[in-house]
Structure formats: C-alpha cells, structure tokens
C-alpha cells in the first residue's frame, strides 16, 4: 500500500494531555508528573504543549475544581525543562483575564487558545489583541462548534481573525461532530479566511471519531491538530496523540514528531497514572450522542452519586437545556431538581 493523497501535507501537533487531560484527573496532576510528560513530549518533537488547569487561566475555582498547583507554578516548572516546544495556555474570557495571560506569559507561555462558545466570538477581542501585543502565537478557539452551522462558524472565525488570531480552531467540545460535518465546516472556513491564517481542529473521542475527524480536518485544509497522549482528556478524551501521529506517518502527513517516543510515553507514563480508563464508556458515549460538553462527565458522575439520579439522565437533561461549557454549576442544580421531581430530595426550593 502506498501513502495517500495527503502525502507531503504538514501538520502542527498541539498536545492537550496537560490541560484537557487535567479534566480526566480532576485537576490533580502533580507538577513533577507534568514536567516528566512535558519533557517527554519535547523530546518527541511535539511543537506545542498546553499547560494549565483544565478550564484554563483563572480556572482554579469551586466551579471548575482546584488544581494541585497554580497555573503559574505549572507553567514555570514546564518552561524550565522544555527545549524546543512552545508552551501554550487556554484562556476563556469570563473566567480568565488579561492579567492572568500576562502572568502566564511572564512564566514562559508563548501560545494561547482564546476560547469562546461558538456563537460568542465577540467576547474575545481584548484578549486576542492583548495576546498578539505580547507576541504570542494566538488561536481563536470556537468551543461546542456543533451548536453553530458552517455559515455561522465562518462568521465567527472571521471575527476572531479580524481581532488578530493567527489560527482559528473548530472545537468539537462535545465529541458530537460527524466526519462529514468536520469536512464541511473546515472547508468553508478555509475558503473564507486569509491564506496565512491557519485552521485547527480539536476533537473529542466520544463517538470514537477523534482520529478520523482530525484527518478529515487536515484533508479539508486544517494544519493544526490538538491531541493528547492516550487520549487523556475530558469525556472519552481527545484524539489520541500517538495514534494520530501513527496514522499521519502512514498517510505521509508530516508532523515531525517521533511516533515511537509518543507511543512509549502514552503507554509507560500516561496510562498507568489515569484515575479511570479514558474510553468511550456509557456516559462518555452519551456526551457524544447528545452533544454535551465533555468536561461535564466527571461532575455529572459525582452529582449522580450524591443525589441518586443516573449520570446519563443528568447529561441528557443538560443537553436538552442547552447548557454550554462553563456552566458546571448547572450540573448540581439539574441533578437536585431531577432528584426532587423523583422524590429523592425533600422539600420544594
């Protein structure tokens, strides 16, 4: 078998193990483990490594959980060991602020995903402009992309480009998008943006499509892909980095990464320290099936345990109520309301 029609395409890999992966670890990754994994990724020639609390800058909170260390401490520690990779951070306006971005920059971060819900790009102009002013590699990150159509997403992508983003991502936060959706959306955005603006794709593996959708995005013109070692990330995880690298090798897509080194890192370091096997289990599949924010998985399980309503029921209800990333408080609220309706919780509010 030969290579593929994508032979010779160049793709920039962006590791999510130490940011999206924080969700799968309930934000409890020790600094030493981050340093060890980041160092391995750096040696494996992965060019970008995202390092923050799962919810990004400003994420340490009751709403999103408190990490073992501050973002500043994580970034500083990783910056001290990486040689070639750039450290990136996540910034969701409304949660993180420019003050925290400045701090992250001072600690060594040189790239940022400025993330908004897929219809709210106009909450990001200050942050994107500020990141550019700092000289950072700046991505506009359109979360829950399945909740907008190709035309709408293109308009939002154009807004982010106009604020100064040098890359715009289609972000399948719920792992809901089908491969044909990815192809349509990425092609349309690729046609609309300036040739020098890169397109990225961030997938979740809730329907088992993490790698397939990433490849579809590349075929449609994306040149940056988010992935994580052994898929360590929210829900059923991100596109598994070592698998994506292997598929790219087979197809002749140039990532520059050392696939065997990534396989070793995933198997020897990441899998053994998982709290639960990150896979398409019943609730993770529910996320992808119903279009629910992947990060809701573990808090929904906790609420299920506390209030006696099955996690799948809670997730379906959150999807029906159109709750989006950041509304983690509505998980407990929804569970309590459902528990009361089922006679499991006394009293009316």
């Amino acid at each position, binding site marked *: 078998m030969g290579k593929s029609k994508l032979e010779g395409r160049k793709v920039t890999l962006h590791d999510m193990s130490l940011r999206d992966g924080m969700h799968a670890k309930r934000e409890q990754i020790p600094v030493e483990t981050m340093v060890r994994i980041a160092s391995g990724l750096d040696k494996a020639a992965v060019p970008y490594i995202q390092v923050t609390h799962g919810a990004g800058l400003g994420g340490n909170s*009751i709403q999103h959980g408190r990490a073992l260390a501050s973002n500043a401490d994580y970034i500083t520690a990783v910056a001290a060991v990486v040689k070639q990779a750039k450290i990136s951070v996540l910034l969701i*306006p409304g*949660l993180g602020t420019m003050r925290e971005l400045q701090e992250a920059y001072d600690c060594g971060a040189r790239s940022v995903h400025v993330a908004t819900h897929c*219809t709210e790009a106009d909450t990001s102009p200050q942050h994107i402009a500020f990141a550019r002013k700092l000289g950072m590699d700046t991505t506009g990150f359109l979360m829950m992309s399945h909740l907008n159509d190709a035309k709408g997403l293109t308009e939002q992508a154009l807004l982010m480009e106009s604020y100064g983003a040098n890359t715009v991502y289609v972000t399948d936060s719920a792992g809901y998008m089908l491969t044909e959706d990815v192809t349509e959306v990425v092609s349309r955005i690729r046609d609309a943006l300036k040739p020098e603006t890169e397109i990225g794709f961030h997938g979740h593996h809730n329907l088992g499509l993490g790698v397939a959708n990433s490849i579809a995005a590349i075929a449609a013109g994306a040149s940056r892909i988010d992935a994580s070692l052994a898929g360590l990330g929210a829900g059923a995880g991100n596109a598994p980095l070592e698998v994506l690298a292997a598929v790219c090798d087979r197809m002749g897509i140039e990532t520059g990464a050392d696939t065997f080194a990534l396989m070793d890192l995933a198997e020897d370091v990441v899998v053994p320290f998982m709290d639960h096997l990150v896979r398409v289990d019943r609730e993770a599949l529910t996320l992808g099936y119903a279009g629910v924010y992947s990060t809701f998985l573990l808090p929904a399980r906790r609420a299920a345990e506390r209030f006696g309503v099955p996690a799948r029921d809670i997730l379906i209800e959150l999807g029906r109520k159109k709750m989006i990333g950041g509304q983690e408080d509505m998980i407990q*609220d929804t569970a309590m309301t459902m528990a009361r309706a089922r006679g499991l919780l006394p009293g009316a509010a």
Partner: protein
Amino acid sequence: MKKIKCALIGSGNIGTDLLYKLKRSEVLEPVWMVGIDAGSEGLARARDLGLKTTHEGVDGLLPHVLDDDIRIAFDATSAYVHAENSRKLNALGVLMIDLTPAAIGPLCVPPVNLRDIAARGPVMNVNMISCAGQATIPIVAAVGAVQPVDYAEIVASLSSRSVGPGTRANLDEFTFTTSNALEKVGGAKRGKALAIINPADPPLIMRNTIYCEVEGTPDRDAITASVLEMIRQVQVYVPGYRLVNGPDFNGNCVAVFMEVAGLGDYLPTYAGNLDIMTAAAARTAEMFAQGILDGSETLRHLESV
C-alpha cells in the same frame, strides 16, 4: 405629591427599561432622556412618553439642569464617559446613579448597604456594580451575616441576547468589578466572579450560582433562614428573584442556585440581569429622593475640577 426630577443618560436598552420603572415611581419623575444619536429609537420612545430629549450627550442637558430642577441623573452609558458626565452634573448639584462599571462612588446593593451609604453623609455618586453583583452579593451578605465568608465565588449565566456590545468587549472589567464588590460589599475575604454567555434559543432566564466557603462548620439553619429573608428583601424590588435550589451544604461550602426573571417592562423577562440593575438603580434613587423630600438629604454643588 412632589416628586424629584430625574434625567436618564443613555437611550439604549438599560436607559429605556429604567424609564418605564421611573414612570411608576411615587417619588421620582423622569424629565430628560439624553442620547448621542438623533435617530435613536430610545429617544423617540422617551419623547412619546412625554420626556424632553437631547441627542447631544450630557452637554445638551447641562443648560436645562437648573431650570428643570434636575436633582438625580442615571448614567447608563459606559465607564469611559461616566467620569466626565458625573463631574459635569455633580458641579450642578445633581446626584449620579452610575450603572456603568466606572465605580467612582460607593458601590451599592440596596438591601445590603443602601441605608449605610445614605446615612454616611453627603454622597454625589453611587455605583450599581454589575448585574451579577446585584444578583449575588445579597446572598453572600446573608451568609456573611451568620458567619464569616472566607471565599465567595459566583457564576452568572446570561442569555446571549441580553448582553450588549459594551459588556462583550470588556468582559475583564465585568469580572474585576464584580469580584471586587463581592469583597467590599458582600463582605467576603476573597471574591471571584465568573460569567457565561449562553446563546440558547428560546433564551434562558438569567441564572446565578453563589458559593460561599465559611469559617468553621456552617450553621445550616441560621444560614438558610438568613438567605431566605434576604431573598424576600430583594423580591420587594425584583419580584422575579427566585431560589431554584439550595442552600446546599457540602463541607464548609454553601451553594445557592438562583434565577432572575425580569419584569418585562421593556426588555423580555429572560433578561433578568438588566432588570435587576435598573430595579436596583431605581430603588437607590428612591431612597435618596425620599431623603431630599423630607429634608434629611442635601445635595451639594461640587466644585468643577
């Protein structure tokens, strides 16, 4: 009964909604509406309701302040122009109620500290913080009235359609203003505010979750009673302020899940975030107006600086 005459600066959504509330007031009479666009819908509506209007900004109002006996002005423009508006009107002895995040004057949440502010002596500028601040600080203060709050964190979920371009372009400001007020007015040692803008259609009613980490073991009964009493006090001026779940106790953390439906005066009911701002501003002005009417409150003419 004599009423205190008022001017509204800013003819957008907030100014217009506020106008409807002032029209119902027993102590306030809206007389002027100030805009910057001659073709503005808000100015036309104000004219229809019998107000005098100008599209020349505050400068268009200044020559009429003394003749029309304007004593209170509401600023629903932006933090950037508020300082200048306030300076000009204060110089003429007009009390400013500030609905922008400028926060020049004392921060005010009516059931928490309005009486204190009014009792503290002459004040010429009062700031209404933010919608999230108005919706959550009462609860933090109610918990704090029982035992010290080490940390208060609030999450405001707003319907996309109720969030205007000013807030969108300045989300950091919203975050800082609200976080600061959780400490200064709510009494928490540390405060953190989160905002989420949800585009669901039909639009979702404003939701607020308030988390308070208290010193020691929470006194469940006392905190619950204090929170319920505070909700009743807010309901006096925002009838749609409703407890959905809680107070829930988890370790030393108290969680309260609120919903704010607006009155639907001008803005739709889901925009409880805008309603609670205009209702709080009207209530604050009424308190001062009562004082002016009964002689306990005097407004000073501030020197121009």
